[in-house]
């Protein structure tokens, strides 16, 4: 069954889009990340213009993060103070990111920048996750009762000025650190159409040293508002949000998420992280391959301009 997407200006199979949303939802349920990093490249791959894919995916991320935020909020897993500081950077970053996106689109390099950013991000995060889960696995085997070390290591970033106390996260760090992190995630969110959870979550754990219990909830909080900002700005400046596309992705996600969380409940964390690492690496490899492979046709068309 085909449906015409009014903003993407083409017809697309309903079940394909529903399935894409479902896959993103499955990931969201399993790993607590948005799944946008998988859905956006796939949307572009099936022929949705990158500008529309990114903007509509940002719309989908809102739905995804509000449903998991609901759960995290109830469990008290949101560090509101940290979330708001991150959000300050996130709003600035996503606004700058939408302008950057518009500019890259105008000079015809947006597809390339999207692909390169995905390859760099996904491969580094995928490798990180694979190594981390492998080393945890082997450590546990060797010494199952190893004592816990410090909450986190102290290094250069803890010596920056403007320190703030984050009680829930048990942190006393410079506010510039989360603001800067939020800014970077905001830019990524605007350009790649992802919530950025797959970058934000590791960064909060390894860079800020936040306890893992509040990481998912707090990142969801920040992602919700950043995705809303991106959706709004993309709609207002570029007119590239396709609500029909977003609706199908959201509905798919609503079905996929509970399945994902059931799978997650049955698997140990190390296995989950290893699976996630493999998946992320697979997407990165495919995208890299696309960049290296000689294209079927080197030509493409930019946007049509109807002259008066």
């Amino acid at each position, binding site marked *: 069954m085909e449906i015409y997407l009014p903003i993407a200006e083409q017809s697309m199979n309903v079940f394909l889009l529903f399935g894409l949303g479902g896959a993103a939802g499955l990931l969201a349920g399993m790993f607590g990340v948005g799944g946008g990093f998988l859905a956006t490249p796939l949307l572009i791959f099936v022929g949705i213009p990158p500008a529309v894919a990114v903007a509509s995916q940002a719309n989908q991320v809102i739905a995804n993060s509000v449903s998991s935020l609901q759960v995290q909020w109830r469990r008290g897993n949101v560090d509101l103070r940290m979330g708001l500081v991150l959000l300050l950077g996130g709003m600035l970053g996503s606004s700058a990111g939408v302008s950057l996106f518009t500019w890259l689109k105008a000079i015809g390099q947006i597809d390339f920048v999207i692909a390169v950013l995905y390859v760099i991000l996904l491969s580094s995060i995928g490798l990180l996750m694979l190594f981390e889960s492998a080393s945890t696995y082997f450590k546990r085997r060797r010494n199952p009762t190893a004592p816990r070390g410090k909450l986190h290591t102290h290094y250069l970033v803890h010596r920056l000025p403007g320190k703030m106390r984050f009680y829930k996260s048990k942190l006393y760090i410079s506010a510039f650190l989360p603001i800067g992190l939020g800014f970077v995630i905001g830019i990524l969110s605007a350009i790649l159409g992802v919530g950025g959870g797959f970058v934000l979550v590791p960064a909060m754990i390894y860079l800020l040293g936040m306890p893992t219990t509040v990481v998912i909830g707090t990142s969801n909080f920040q992602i919700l508002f950043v995705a809303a900002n991106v959706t709004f700005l993309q709609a207002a400046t570029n007119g590239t949000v396709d609500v029909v596309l977003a*609706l199908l992705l959201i509905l798919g996600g609503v079905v996929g*998420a509970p399945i994902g969380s059931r799978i997650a409940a049955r698997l140990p964390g190390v296995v989950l992280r290893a699976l996630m690492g493999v998946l992320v690496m697979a997407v990165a490899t495919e995208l890299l391959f696309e960049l290296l492979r000689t294209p079927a046709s080197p030509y493409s068309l930019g946007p049509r301009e109807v002259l008066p």
Partner: protein
Amino acid sequence: MRRLVLLLLALTVCGGVCAQRIEPPASGPANPTFGAPPDTRLPPSVPSSPGMPELIVDLSQPRVSITSAFQGESLLLFGMFDPPGEIVVVVQGPAARETVMRKERFLGLWLNTGRLQFDDVPAYYFIAASAPLQRLLARGAGGEILSLEDRLATIRPARQRSPAQLAEFRQGLVEVKRREDLYPANFGHVTVQAARLFRAELPFPSRLPEGVYDVRTYLLRDGKIITAVSRPLPVGKVGFSAQLAGWSGEQGPLYGLAAIVMALVLGWLGGAMLRRL
């Protein structure tokens, strides 16, 4: 029976309401206004001689409506002419500026390095004829009826380039348009029945630019254009698609807010369902 129905349709629908008649061009240079949309200042079609016009044309639909279920569409063009003669149909989409981009290998990666803009590029171009087109055009109608190659020879690059580069980018443009079925690769066939009725299928793909298309039907005799009928064919979104697209274009911020609210509500409901399970 079918022929009769077609004939009746042709007579009733096209009794001078829908078609506008174009005088055959004077001999000499090619008509420079060919690429422009049909001139609406001309009075509606009045047969040049009393009685039956020599060429009557109609379409199975007055417009191409892009609805939520649109997957591309095939329109039937049909009509009647005074034999003998050959029929050529040229369908042209609205002209616009197109940017052709070319990928080249840079440090092992493929990225867009070359770009060239062309003005006056038809969004869509399709020709159908009742006889091999090359033969018809060779006999002198080439000035007015242009094959895709000839038509594209008239598009102007926005910046001056070497002839070799121009040819490459022009070829690239055709490649992309072919891929999207906007420049159908094969000439269509105009089927003539009973020596005076004709019909042709006009294929429109799903990724169809909006605008007023020009459907021009020519009656040729001994390689000369006897008469031509031009019909504007509006292509546009209708219903829900049109509303959404219009809203997105004109009320961007409001549309964005609505999209956010939709996502919030659905996400919230989804989350509530997730807890129940």
